[in-house]
């Protein structure tokens, strides 16, 4: 899925500098293309939801592995999931958020992405 999205994004760069012959123009021309709604959309949250079966130590290890968080931060998120039912692990562009959710599902955590705002 991410590959498909990447290809689609590559096909529509928002701005591209057009080469012009020397002396023809003083300033380089900027060719404007329309940005798709996908490119200007709001960022997304990666959320992990509580699950009474997954072990706390396992969840902590997964957060450390996927997000590269130090143990303390991973434990903080794990406890947030445990006590509040969910924790926002990461926020940012959709494609990367999808990739994180895919990795979290690979470890069998209950994870979703959610549009911010």
């Amino acid at each position, binding site marked *: *899925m991410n590959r498909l999205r990447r290809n689609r994004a590559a096909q529509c760069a928002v701005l591209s500098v057009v080469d012009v012959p020397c002396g023809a123009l003083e300033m380089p021309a900027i060719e404007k293309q329309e940005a798709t709604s996908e490119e200007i959309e709001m960022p997304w949250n990666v959320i992990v939801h509580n*699950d009474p079966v997954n*072990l706390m130590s*396992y969840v902590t290890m997964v957060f450390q592995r996927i997000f590269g968080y130090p143990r303390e931060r991973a434990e903080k998120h794990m406890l947030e999931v445990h006590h509040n039912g969910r924790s926002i692990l990461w926020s940012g562009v959709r494609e990367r958020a999808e990739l994180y959710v895919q990795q979290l599902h690979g470890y*069998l955590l209950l*994870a*979703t*992405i*959610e549009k911010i705002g």
Partner: protein
Amino acid sequence: MEICRQNEALEIRELDPFLAELLRQIPESAQPKDSPAAEERLFSPPAAPEEKVLCAEWKLYVVPELRRLFQSATETVREDLQQLRCTDKPFANCTLRIPMAHADAWLSALNQARLAIAATYQFSDHELCDHYRSPLGSRRDLSLFQVNFYGFLQEFILREMEGND
């Protein structure tokens, strides 16, 4: 049963037939064919139902990949479990040796099995915290024991993996 680290492997020794049977059931329990609840838990949606396109793409592209990933882990575990086919010696003398290189596969398969069983039987939080219930009462009690036993193995593997870091 005794479980310990031996160099680059975990060893489970002095297995009684009951626990050996629970170990043998890991691959089957991890991939239940007749439990929609388990299927739903192992392949949960990536977003709220309103995100129809995302959920549809997920089913199409990601779920088959996840299925392959989970299958690969359970196959590794299944191969390791071949050691429990002790036909020439008493069970108590059987040792299951799990190479540390297979630790991730074991964690995944044990987790798949625990989640699938818990989803199938819809265990409550209270039941999942009851580590002292006898496995002898009913199929449900046995399944709860299975979830806890697999959890114990997961904890041990995680501790040993942490020791490796």
